[in-house]
């Protein structure tokens, strides 16, 4: 294969690399990948923080993350280079949002906002809030200059790169135009949107109830002066993501759906001119024994009765070759579209990774290029 290989070692070791963001669809091992990269860089002597979103329980325990606490904690681990440090945190979306509100308004106003019933909806279930807050937290951490490298895991987005789109969506939601229309449509406005809107406004009021719209209007009003601050902040984060010290890594497994998403991520990141380092093709199954398929198949059949265990071992081998052939096929299809995207394959571990030795092994495989 004449493909460019994603050589992660130099990227993670490079002092100029300050931020690594992993993205990809759900269930591809993003969190594990992020943690492995962080541990690897810490072993190489850097002071690293890994920001995880929703780690598996046992992985969280391995990182010493028993609860959401929204601040990085030092992981108790002996590192190859004693100068290195590994820190980890689990994102608390609602709390990050609270902190952002606190940073951009007076204490009284912040209190009023936090008490509004809509705030809870927005800070927990507005689609994209989690992604937005992951980036907000990244931005805050990066600003402290406390770490050499921050590795961020992104939530499994339902679609696309929500962390890029959410700030815009949230501010257009909160900019108050719609709520003013709904709560008090004035004449001037009516001329523009037409009579249909009165009916719509009535219908919405019937469905949602007047009280709700009232609360919403109040909420939007409270938020109004913060917009400037929010926008600026979002812009700042966006610039941080585009800066040369950032590297995006797309993670995928070798399956059609996951690669389709990966393809989308890669295109979108490039369109936004985000520094895309490459693709990690996770959990692949390269054969460990050099034994061609036809010979294995013939032998398997021949010794089925006389040497059942050897036949079973051959069966495992032929299965593996079949899986590998499918993986290579998928990969070839992906490569045809993304000819210049560097790729590194990380062979699957036998078990789920939930301790530091397993993370180290993944780190080793990831950087073996």
């Amino acid at each position: 294969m004449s493909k460019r290989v994603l050589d992660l070692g130099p990227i993670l070791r490079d002092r100029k690399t300050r931020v690594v963001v992993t993205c990809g669809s759900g269930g591809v091992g993003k969190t594990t990948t992020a943690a492995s990269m962080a541990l690897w860089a810490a072993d190489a002597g850097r002071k690293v923080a890994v920001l995880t979103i929703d780690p598996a329980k046992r992985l969280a325990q391995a990182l010493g993350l028993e609860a959401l606490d929204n601040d990085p904690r030092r992981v108790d681990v002996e590192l190859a280079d004693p100068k290195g440090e590994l820190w980890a945190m689990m994102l608390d979306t609602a709390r990050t949002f609270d902190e952002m509100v606190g940073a951009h308004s007076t204490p009284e106003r912040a209190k009023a906002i936090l008490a509004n019933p809509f705030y809870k909806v927005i800070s927990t279930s507005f689609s994209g809030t989690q992604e937005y807050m992951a980036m907000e937290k990244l931005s805050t951490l990066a600003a402290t200059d406390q770490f050499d490298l921050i590795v961020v895991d992104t939530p499994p987005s339902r679609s696309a790169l929500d962390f890029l789109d959410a700030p815009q969506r949230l501010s257009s939601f909160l900019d108050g135009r719609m709520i003013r229309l709904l709560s008090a449509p004035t004449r001037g406005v009516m001329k523009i949107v037409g009579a249909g809107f009165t009916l719509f406004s009535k219908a919405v009021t019937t469905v949602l109830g007047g009280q709700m719209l009232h609360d919403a209007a109040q909420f939007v009003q409270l938020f109004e002066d913060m917009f400037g601050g929010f926008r600026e902040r979002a812009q700042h984060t966006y610039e941080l993501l585009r800066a040369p010290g950032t590297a995006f890594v797309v993670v995928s497994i070798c399956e059609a759906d996951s690669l389709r998403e990966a393809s989308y991520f890669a295109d979108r990141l490039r369109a936004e001119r985000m520094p895309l380092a490459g693709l990690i093709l996770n959990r692949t199954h390269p054969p460990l024994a050099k034994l061609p398929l036809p010979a294995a198949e013939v032998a398997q059949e021949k010794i089925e009765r006389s040497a059942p265990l050897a036949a079973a071992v051959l069966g495992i081998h032929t299965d593996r070759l079949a899986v590998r052939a499918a993986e290579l096929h998928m990969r070839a299809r992906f490569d045809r579209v993304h000819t210049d995207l560097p790729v590194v394959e990380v062979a699957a571990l036998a078990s789920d990774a939930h301790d530091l030795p397993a993370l180290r092994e993944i780190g080793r495989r990831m950087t073996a290029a």
Partner: protein
Amino acid sequence: MTPAEPRATTPEAVPETTPSQPMSTKTGATANGAASGNGRAGSSGPAREPWTNACHRARLHVVTGKGGTGKTTVAAALALTLATEGRRVLLVEVEERQGIARLFDVPPLPYEERKVAVATGGGEVRALCIDVEAALLEYFQIFYGLGFAGRSLKKMGAVEFATTLAPGLRDVLLTGKVKETVTRLGSDNKLVYDSVVMDAPPTGRVVTFLGVTGAMSDIARRGPIHSQAEGVVRLLHSADTIVHLVTLLEDMPVTETLEAIEHLRDADLPVGTIIVNAATVSRLPSASLKPASENRLDKSRLAAGLAQGGITADDAVLDGLAAQAAEHAIRVLDEADCREQLVATGLPILSLPRLVDGGDLGGVYELADRLAEQGVT
């Protein structure tokens, strides 16, 4: 709009059903262990039949699972299985991801019921991708005569605004539309669909989604949407509805499944089966699993066995084969642990094999056959 009449009638990938010998190039690496044993379609069968009477009786099958477990594929396979013998089944998607269209290889589905596949024996599967905005506008049109203005309101973002303000409204609209399809009568006054299979939100969100009562606090106390929501609550808590949980035999999905079962039970929602997807079937005799997993297989014996098959294996090949066997054995043992946790719930378990190249339509048909073999009908 391109007509969505599918080319998906009898894909060449549908295998001859050979339950006792599930190895084919298509099935590849693994086969369906627990799956292949018993189970004749249609029979009320022995007590351990996973497709219980409650499953038989239900008409709305809610399929949930953690992201990445193959929930959409399994929902589609279940719909195909239920559509055998000339029945008509609707497969509903509620997350607007167009996963069904991709799976059945048809253009993105509009907010409209379209035939996507024909089942063995002539039944058919129709699919619907519910568009929340369209569903809300549909209500407004029916109850407020607000048809023509709909499109411009949508453009202005007014509908998105309303559903964002009240996320519960979104769920009420989605479940409301599903209820409508479950209870719809044709001109002959008979139910239009024999079954409806819903590709539901993932386990983390499904209880909130189905717990419509909670969502109703988001909407006004009166009015047509409210009374419809009450009807949805009745349906979801009736014998007409059953929830199936798709999982892989891995830590995270199993943990989430167990949590979801607890929450579903607390919410008094009927849980039907656990559907294990992508299970590995042991190639090794059970006595060899442990030694193989610790890479303690007798290599000289292995070499002798291979020699009988005409393979002269050097040390590198022997080590490689043993390492592969170790990975396989570890995987099988881990999966057995996971399965044990699932068995402890007392729920019936259906098992589907990992398909080597299963992300396509042929894979869906194959999984449908596997479900049928385990008594799903």
